[in-house]
């Protein structure tokens, strides 16, 4: 189950991805005083991408906690605080900086429950910005969420819609284990209408964002709008593409993917990660292992080129999956 409808009547509200995230944070902070937000410049600055703007004024510096530049220490402190009964939401500005905290994430957060024989669960949520598209070059633009999904013991979430931006945090905080939440930088300004009837989303299942019959386009995060745009174009050509939003990269919802492939018998995986060793390889492996005889054509994937993200616009655009490249791959798949 992906969503829970609210009982009362609710109106659809216009909002942005950024505001939806902020509302999710505000709600969590209001509902549970164990929740606090911690990270570089989340307070007075309002968050490097403005997500937490205004929260300091509402909740004070104890719960909207600016940290020094010390990714390893404040992520580790979040883990410790979670062990100590709090429900920390830790913000890392950008996924590239999270490498500085990877020891804490993998060797502690993901591992403590198991190492302790089930004694110590770590209810921490770690949010970070991911992805390219804003000419921020090779140290601010990578998409490592698929890479993180390799680590047992954590959840990896990639909200791509306003509703997921608004509600995934609550579900993540309700989870007893570490959750990594990746916000694609190019989505912050995305505007749209929030479905007022949804008041909760699940974390376990992928979602078909556009039904189709000829080819499955499987994607997540910042690539979802591109996949949907590609599906529009394909529709003009009479090709019916089904767009699947994975939503969670760990655990992966095989069932929804395989059901889609069982309908279409063809699939293209779209993923902003570098191609080799990407989560799209894993999706292909799952399909090959479990639905080999359903396939009518080789699986295809559209990924980022294997290059540190260049600054120049034309190079960055060429390095990333684009609607045109998705369309081309889908055409080949159905050819």
């Amino acid at each position, binding site marked *: 189950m992906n969503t829970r409808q609210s009982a009362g009547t609710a109106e659809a509200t216009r909002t942005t991805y950024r505001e939806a995230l902020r509302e999710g944070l505000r709600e969590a902070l209001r509902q549970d005083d164990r929740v606090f937000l911690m990270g570089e410049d989340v307070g007075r600055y309002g968050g490097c991408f403005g997500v937490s703007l205004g929260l300091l004024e509402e909740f004070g510096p104890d719960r909207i906690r600016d940290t020094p530049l010390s990714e390893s220490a404040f992520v580790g402190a979040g883990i410790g605080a979670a062990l100590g009964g709090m429900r920390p939401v830790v913000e890392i500005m950008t996924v590239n900086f999270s490498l500085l905290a990877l020891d804490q994430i993998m060797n502690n957060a993901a591992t403590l429950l198991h190492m302790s024989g089930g004694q110590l669960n770590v209810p921490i949520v770690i949010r970070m910005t991911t992805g390219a598209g804003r000419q921020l070059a090779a140290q601010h633009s990578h998409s490592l969420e698929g890479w993180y999904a390799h680590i047992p*013991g954590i959840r990896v979430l990639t909200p791509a819609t306003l509703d997921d931006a608004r509600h995934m945090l609550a579900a993540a905080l309700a989870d007893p284990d570490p959750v990594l939440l990746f916000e694609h930088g190019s989505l912050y300004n995305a505007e749209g209408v929030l479905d007022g009837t949804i008041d909760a989303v699940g974390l376990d299942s992928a979602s078909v964002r556009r039904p189709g019959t000829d080819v499955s386009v499987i994607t997540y995060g910042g690539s979802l709008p591109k996949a949907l745009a590609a599906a529009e174009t394909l529709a003009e050509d009479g090709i019916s593409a089904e767009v699947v939003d994975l939503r969670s990269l760990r655990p992966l919802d095989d069932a929804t993917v395989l059901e889609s492939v069982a309908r279409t018998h063809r699939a293209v995986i779209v993923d902003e990660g570098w191609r080799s060793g990407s989560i799209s390889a894993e999706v292909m492996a799952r399909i090959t292992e479990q639905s080999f005889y359903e396939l009518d054509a080789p699986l295809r994937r559209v990924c980022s080129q294997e290059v540190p993200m260049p600054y120049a616009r034309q190079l960055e655009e060429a390095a990333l999956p684009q609607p045109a490249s998705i369309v081309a791959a889908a055409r080949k798949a159905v050819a």
Partner: protein
Amino acid sequence: MSTTTKRASGPKRAGGSRRPSGPPADEPRPGRDHRLEVLRQMLLIRRFEERCVELYSAAEIRGFVHLYIGEEAVAVGVGQALREEDAVVSTYREHGHALARGVPSDAVMAEMFGKVTGCSRGRGGSMHLFDAERRFYGGNAIVAGGLPLAAGLALADRMRGTERVTCCFFGDGAYAEGEFHETANLAALWQLPLLLVCENNLYAMGTSLAREHAQTNLAMRAASYGMPAWTVDGMDVTAVEAVARRAADSVRSGGGPHFLEARTYRFRAHSMYDPDRYRSKDEIARWKARDPLVELEQRMRAEGILDDPATKRLEEDVTSEIDAAVRSAGAAPYEPVADLLRFVTSTTGSTR
């Protein structure tokens, strides 16, 4: 955690090093029962680990095992200053910390045997002892990896307004890691109720203090973060306890983080695999002459609160505790392989 009734002597000179800079120890001298309990704990750790060596040779224990022998005064002295509600974060050299914290010796032994009755169900082994009930948070084998975690436990207490202390043990080697720096600053900045105990045993594996640190006065450097920092003779359990009490009391009453450098020495090699090529026999002998157990025993005898029969009783007591631990560990079951994927996440169901 008995009460203290007599005067403790001040910290003594650490072997071959500068005069420690701890505060004057003018606490009341501990009473006989307390002294005996301290001695018993130290002896338990010593004998427990000696038994581990035998069991390692017999292949009952495997993996990496790091012995604490020689350093017992630190864990036990500091342990006396902590209360039940406090938390302890430790390293891979943590048998002593765990036992001093009250983790039952049979659960520790079973853990080393890899049995399901172990304090981590056999999933952790020697380097990863845990006991949530006693707030013993491991057992971290990434050098310095426990420091940020300890700061977080202290932060939770700070935010919830409790009076608990989190005590984090780490080594002189860990001090060189970035995580030490980040944690020290964070703790001082946020005035966290954190007791940082640096066990300076002069070596990080085979690398001596002077080849790890340009400036080897660790307490002085710690003070530069803006927190009280004292050095204590880590071979003198009475001195350690006195300083740790003072520090813990100050932390508890809102004094922010405190740093203790305990000058100590491991009598054995770094781990079971270490041929110990990097230390001179002389140096080892000099430190062994300051055996913390012997020093305490001698003091107690001089004070007239220990005699041969009492020593014998203690030894027997400890030996039978360890015998029982070994027996029960040996008899305990292994976890069934079918349970391998438990505890990866808290919820059952798909984990990947």
